[in-house]
Every structure is written in structure tokens, then in C-alpha cells.
């Protein structure tokens, strides 16, 4: 059942941006992890653009948490998220992890930050 998640990477205005579109679950989270792991340790900002993600489960959340912890020790200071879908935001809320990340409503807002 391939094709549930598409992940691309770009650098915009000095920001390392990982775009994800689709569903991040136990069967697709590895694709997201692969791109997040490729973020340079010396990047000043790393943004996971989840604006196109409609579903996020605990495995996907675990990938975001581990990336955030890795980046906390570098110049970026952590992983920033762009979230527009209410169900994705709710996963962070109900696990009590919303405060862990800097969350933006749009990529434009993230890049302006």
C-alpha cells in the first residue's frame, strides 16, 4: 500500500524544510524519519511542514520527538512544525507534547518567524 506519504526536502531562505503530504503512521513513518535524519546538524532552522498531513499516529509522533531531541543540541535548537489539520494537532494535545515544539499554522508563518 505504497504512496500514502510523500516526503520532499528543500532549503528556503536558509531554512531546511521537510514537506510531508499524506498519512504518517507506523507503515510510513520511516520515510519521514529518513528525511528528518538527513537534516544537517549545523542547520540553523529545521521545519517539518506537515501542512499536507491528514493523519499522524504515535509512531509518527515518536519520529518528530526523536528529531527534536537531536536538533535541540545543535544550532536549530529543535524541530519546528507546520500543522494545519486539526486531527494532527490533536495528537500533540492529547499526549501533552504540544508545548515541546514550536508550531506554526502555515509554512509562510514559519519562514517569517
Amino acid at each position, binding site marked *: *500500500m505504497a504512496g500514502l506519504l510523500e516526503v520532499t526536502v528543500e532549503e528556503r531562505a536558509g531554512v531546511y524544510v521537510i514537506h510531508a503530504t499524506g498519512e504518517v503512521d*507506523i*507503515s510510513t513513518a520511516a520515510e519521514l524519519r529518513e528525511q528528518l535524519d538527513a537534516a544537517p546538524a549545523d542547520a540553523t532552522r529545521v521545519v517539518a511542514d506537515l501542512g499536507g498531513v491528514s493523519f499522524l499516529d*504515535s*509512531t509518527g*509522533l*515518536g519520529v518528530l520527538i526523536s528529531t527534536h531531541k537531536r536538533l535541540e543540541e545543535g544550532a536549530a535548537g529543535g524541530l519546528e512544525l507546520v500543522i494545519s489539520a486539526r486531527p494532527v494537532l490533536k*495528537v500533540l494535545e492529547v*499526549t*501533552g507534547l504540544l508545548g515541546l515544539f514550536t508550531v506554526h499554522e502555515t509554512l509562510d508563518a514559519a519562514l517569517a518567524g
Partner: protein
Amino acid sequence: MSLDDGGRSQASFDLPADPEMWTLARMGVSAIATGIDFGIDDIEDLRLAVSELCSTCAVGATGESRMVLECSWDKSAISVRCEVNAIGFDEGEEDDLSRRILAALTDEYEVGKLTDGARGGSFRKGREPAGH
């Protein structure tokens, strides 16, 4: 699909215990919830709860493992029961985030070892009152 003695409808899915199948499980339960006019927020909660239940029950699943998902419902609530066989259970691999999500999104849930080589769990979710 059938009716049990209490007038609740029932359906079951027998799938390989392969994470790629969780999408089908989510779709099946979503379709049931849509059919009894659950709201969009409830349906999204159910989709996530089903995924977490499947993942938690399938800890230690092997290539031979099968998953049976049984759903029963009436107009007010949906119950989902999951059983995975042929597992090599390792308690240490279970994900605490899954349990947190299940606790937050369902009215009640339980997950655990059933017998040697089988693991299962269930949850019940009632319809959110209108306006929530």
C-alpha cells in the same frame, strides 16, 4: 455484518497483522461510524484509536500473525476488539504514547496479553454530544 442478541450491529475484519493493513482497519471503522452519523471529530478520533489499538496489539507480531478486528455498534457508541495471534511478546516494546492516545480518545480501553502467543485489546467510544 450481523446483529447480536442486544440489537447491536457487528462486523469483523480478518487481516494480516501487517502495519500496512492498519489503513484498511481505519477505513472500515470510519465507514461504520459514518453510517451511524458520528461527527467528523469522533470519526477522526476513531481512526487514530484504531491505529493505536492495532499497533499496540501487534507488538511482537510475526509474518505469520493474523489480526481479527471485531466491531459492534449502535447509535450511541462503537466498540472495537482486536486480537493478534502468533506473536513473540516483549513487554518492553510497547509504546506509552499509544496508551496515552487511547486513554484520551476513548471512553474505556484495555490492552494486554491474552494467552501465550496471542495479544489483544479493545476500546469503546461513545458519540460526542452535539456542540462539542
